[in-house]
């Protein structure tokens, strides 16, 4: 997503804040597929992904007035809306289904990070992720993209839970430092 499109989204959000339903429809047309893809990747079930997208868009409509461009890009705001709803759904599922264990899933392709390079922020993140050891980088990417919790990551990668937690924390600190430089 380039900066111009993100700006357009900010404009649409501003119009939504004023109650403009046509702008809301445009927002859905523009973002629906991308956000649904993100929700589907996390929930792995179309019905749950649809619930996440539904709830996210209602929240986007209700809170459009709160979107503050000074506090960050519209893309991060929109993506955050759907990710937190999808994560709510899968965390609740994990809690409510006794013995629930995430299914095994395939690794991302080795060049999965290549798409990051298409934006300036993405290129910086890509550079900083590459500075992490490979296994730690995988943890970070799987947590964000697949929505796996600490304990799910531990099962998936056959690592002790404490190791997962400390590797993630160190990786995040390292990313923060690298991105600030």
């Amino acid at each position, binding site marked *: 997503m380039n900066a111009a499109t993100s700006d357009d989204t900010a404009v649409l959000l501003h119009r939504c804040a004023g*109650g403009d*339903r046509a702008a*809301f*429809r445009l927002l859905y047309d523009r973002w*629906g*597929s*991308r956000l*649904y*893809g*993100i929700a589907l*990747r*996390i929930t792995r079930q*179309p019905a749950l*992904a*649809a619930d*996440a*997208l*539904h*709830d996210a*868009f*209602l*929240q986007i*409509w*209700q*809170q459009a*007035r*709160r979107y503050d461009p000074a*506090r*960050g*890009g519209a893309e*991060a705001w929109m*993506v*955050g809306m759907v*990710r*937190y709803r999808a994560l*709510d*759904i899968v*965390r*609740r599922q994990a809690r409510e289904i006794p013995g629930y264990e995430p299914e095994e899933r395939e690794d991302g392709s080795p060049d*999965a*990070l290549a798409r*990051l390079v*298409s*934006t300036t*922020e993405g290129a910086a*993140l*890509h550079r900083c992720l590459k500075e992490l050891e490979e296994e730690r980088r995988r943890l*970070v990417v799987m*947590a*964000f*993209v697949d*929505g*796996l*919790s*600490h304990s799910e*990551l531990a099962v998936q990668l056959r690592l002790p839970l404490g190791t997962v937690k400390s590797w*993630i924390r160190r990786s*995040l*600190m390292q*990313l923060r430092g690298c991105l600030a430089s």
Partner: protein
Amino acid sequence: MSGEQDRDLLAAEYVLGSLEGDERREAERLLSVDPAFAHSVSAWQQRLTPLAAQVAPAAPPADLWRRIERGIAPAATVAISPFRRRARFWQATTAGALAIAAALAAFMVLRQPEQTRVALLAPLAGGPPVLMARVERGDGLVVRPTTSIAVPTDKDLELWALPQGETKPRSLGVLPPSGRQLTAQLAPGTQLMVSLEPKGGSPTGQPTGPVLYGGWLTNIEIPRG
């Protein structure tokens, strides 16, 4: 490591999505009450969101837009069928929503079918609703928390109403974390919000602290079941 760095790390893990259980609930709580934490969350969203570009888009179900459209717009009436009371709009995806569902269910049982207005107030930085407001008997407003809200001892929460089309919110007074009942004429489409203010409320008559939660009053219709 300082407390501030710990908090920033918790914000990072929250955005990453790897938190679960108590840690996740603590992050959600902080997001609701701690503006500095909310700021950290925004900053981490900026840092990590490019990762989402890796995920392939997928076409949402064809009927989803209609479902969303039914749920929005204060002017619209959201009809809750008596046989399908788990109406999705209220079936939010959070633990807090259970309390809301319970409140609505009790409301449906105790009251004759009628139209009323409710608002779910959620943290602006994202997260589940923390307060539910319901109009009663035309000019009464009942505001109840759906989760426990921690307020710093030297601060108060203040409730505001912003009618549609207006730019300056009107104070509805200080809001104890346990909720409150008050009298106010509020039209559908009015936005309710809660800000963090000095003890006793805003000294200026307008919000001076960060606005923490917000939501719109929406008509709902509860038919005879």
